[in-house]
């Protein structure tokens, strides 16, 4: 059921909100270091799929396996720990903490994992340099442009060396040029670090940065590259 060598795999996921079925037997897999685009129209279930894969919501039926372990067998605390240590997240709007400076925002996942402040900020600055936002270390999110904030969010997603980054419409709020740069930096950084990326997008030009694409339609996945 789980494709050989996959890092994260879902099989036969069902999820309904009231009488609305968001996922209806969806299956999915991603290999280490692979960038997979999840495409589909609004309401097709692609964000629900991402949230199930990341252990943020629990499917009504079906399994999600990460590193050979089923998420449903873990406690809430174990799943939270997994999200902190192994997963990174980038959302449409950066969701940076407005009270913290740039470097404090990027260092946050490391600090939550118990890394000392100085070391966490040193690592954060290194990622900010790669994402071309090291000059904004002392600025607060309110003083950054949309593109800068999103690069900061990418740095934060990668700072703890996650195995998987979940990116939900990461360029949705950016113009073409900024969106492209964010995608270049996200995919380059992830490939260099061997991090898998699950990229939810409805934009083909964004999906073109992936290695493979999966279409979600009516709560089911269609993968034309190979059968999941």
């Amino acid at each position: 059921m789980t494709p050989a060598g996959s890092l994260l795999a879902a099989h036969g996921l069902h999820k309904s909100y009231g009488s609305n079925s968001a996922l209806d037997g969806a299956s999915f897999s991603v290999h280490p270091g692979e960038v997979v685009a999840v495409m589909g129209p609004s309401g097709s279930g692609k964000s629900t799929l991402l949230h199930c894969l990341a252990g943020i919501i629990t499917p009504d039926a079906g399994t999600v396996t990460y590193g050979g372990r089923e998420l449903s067998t873990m406690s809430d605390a174990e799943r939270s720990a997994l999200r902190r240590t192994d997963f990174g997240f980038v959302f449409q709007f950066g969701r940076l903490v407005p009270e913290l400076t740039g470097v404090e925002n990027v260092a946050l996942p490391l600090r939550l994992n118990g890394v000392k402040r100085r070391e966490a900020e040193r690592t954060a600055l290194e990622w900010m340099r790669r994402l071309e936002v090291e000059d904004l270390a002392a600025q607060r999110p309110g003083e950054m442009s949309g593109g800068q904030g999103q690069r900061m969010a990418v740095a934060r997603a990668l700072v703890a060396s996650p195995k998987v980054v979940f990116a939900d419409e990461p360029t949705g709020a950016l113009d073409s040029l900024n969106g492209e740069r964010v995608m270049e930096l996200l995919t380059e950084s992830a490939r260099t670090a061997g991090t898998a990326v699950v990229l939810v997008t409805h934009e083909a030009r964004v999906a073109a940065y992936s290695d493979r694409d999966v279409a979600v339609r009516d709560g089911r996945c269609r993968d034309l590259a190979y059968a999941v």
Partner: protein
Amino acid sequence: MSIGHTLLGLLESGPRHGYDLKRAFDERFGHDRPLHYGQVYATMSRLLKNGLVEVDGVETDGGPERKRYAITEAGITDVAAWLAQPEKPEPYLQSTLYTKVVLALLTGRDAADLLDSQRSEHLRLMRILTDRKRRGDLADQLICDHALFHLEADLRWLELTSARLGRLAEVVAP
């Protein structure tokens, strides 16, 4: 693309031999389709006949004759007029894809499958172009962007058609 107008435009910076023109064309515009020598010489004879270029000199260098071409005033006017004229927006693939979708519906085949395969093929090409853009210089980026935006427009049409397949099936039902 009008090869004649492009070669004329390249001549505006100064006279060139046919070989130099081909090389300049290929370097700037011929990434996927370099010109054949025959195309260059046939085009230059036509431009010469129409008074848009003139022979600026003939060299032999001990080998075959090589004509050097220069653009005329009429040639410069022609290039300016071509540049000022907007291109007709081409509906390119849509007519073929539309035909295929309708035929699939008419013959009871899975039109959604057809659209998904086409989407995947479009994305495959978009990945190649995105990769070429990432590795290339500014000229590559601009050329690839143009192709990418056109492919994206096709993809939007595919998505929209996919969402309207039910209605389309009712309309085209035999």
